[in-house]
């Protein structure tokens, strides 16, 4: 019998399995209980399945578990987005008068956030696979990832800028001068280039530090990079609009 009242010898027998699985739901979430290890070893149930049963088993309140775990992160993400929004709100009159930029805003936010997620998850996998060299800039896989993301980012940024300038011509007869069209195109390219570079180097710096501390970079890098993307995109966009217009 262990501290939590579970009889570890009993659960080694298959006939006690359903009861043992129910007991999983009573274990506090942050505890790495030996019961999980025993069930995995003795009954060959994958650790992921055991984790799922522990979190969302028949005796747990599924909605409450999810809300408890997700709310803090969602509120933090909202605060960061709101901070980015403060910058745009300050130049609102100017910003809403440039219709293509209004059309581009959600697309840019999505795009840059997605690049943050891709870079973070791919870098985390590379760190786990020990692919990243001590001199990280000499790692061919990292160079390839950077070039791929940069190329996709430039193509999609250019494409979305052009589409965003064409749409208002058809929807509201918006007449855009060549000079302004060039400015919008350049703003989009600079915004995406600056943020992709920031995201890439922040991911590497933070990822290496987190990995050295024997933590899983997956759990930290995605929230860090998506937050930088949200806040950064709107702040950089506001700055560029003030500079160019």
């Amino acid at each position, binding site marked *: 019998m262990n501290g939590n009242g579970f009889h570890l010898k009993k659960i080694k027998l298959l006939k006690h399995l359903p009861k043992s699985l129910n007991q999983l739901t009573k274990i506090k979430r942050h505890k790495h209980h030996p019961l999980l290890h025993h069930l995995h070893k003795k009954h060959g149930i*994958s650790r992921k399945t055991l984790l799922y049963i522990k979190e969302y088993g028949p005796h747990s309140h*599924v909605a409450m578990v*999810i809300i408890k775990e997700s709310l803090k992160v*969602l509120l933090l993400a*909202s605060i960061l987005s709101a901070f980015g929004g403060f910058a745009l*709100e300050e130049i609102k009159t100017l910003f809403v008068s440039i*219709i293509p930029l209004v059309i581009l805003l959600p*697309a840019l936010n999505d795009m840059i956030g997605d690049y943050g997620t891709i870079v973070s998850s791919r870098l985390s996998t590379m760190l786990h696979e020990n692919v990243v060299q001590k001199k990280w800039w000499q790692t061919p896989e990292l160079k390839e990832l950077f070039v791929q993301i940069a190329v996709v980012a430039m193509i999609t940024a250019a494409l979305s800028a052009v589409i965003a300038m064409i749409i*208002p011509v058809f929807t509201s007869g918006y007449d855009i001068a060549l000079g302004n069209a060039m400015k919008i195109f350049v703003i989009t390219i600079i915004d995406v280039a600056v943020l992709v570079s920031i995201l890439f180097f922040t991911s590497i710096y933070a990822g290496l530090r987190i990995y050295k501390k024997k933590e899983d970079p997956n759990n930290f890098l995605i929230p860090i990079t998506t937050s930088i993307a949200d806040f950064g995109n709107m702040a950089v966009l506001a700055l560029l609009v003030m500079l160019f217009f």
Partner: protein
Amino acid sequence: MKIFDKNFKEIFFSQLVSIFGGLIAGTFLAIYTDKLLLIPGMLILIPGFLEMRGNISGTFASRISSGLFLGVVKPKYHETKLVKGNMWAATLLGIIVSAFLGLIAFAFTYFTMGTLAPKIILLPVIAALLTDLIEIPLTWFATIWLFRKGHDPNNIMGPFLTSTGDVSSVIGLLVAMVIL
């Protein structure tokens, strides 16, 4: 160095889907600028509101996908305790986070412009409820459908949900404006 490989194609096509949704949402914003964006505090609210939808629906789809792969969620269109719990959580999270965003926008407009606009708190909450009506069943059906067709929903649902989430959120905000 191989640049134009399978990874490049996957990233590129998922981004095209994501941009498509973002541009549609942006077009709605541009058409209804006078009704939406000119409201004080709206530029603080909208980016967070759009992002929240993707985050909530994305994690909902990801949990259902994990459940499907582990066998604890059956690939059938009937609601089990686990699915219902997930749906309730996604709905409630949407309402709580929307109200929070509304409060931030309200505080900002009050302290910087001296404008009292309580409407900005209620607006995202109603919009979140309306968006939930579309997004939550859509996420559930699409995840199950993709799994039944032999796809990994994790690879497809992310960009799909950010696109649909952007469009339905902006429409939700516009309908909420009409209601209020």
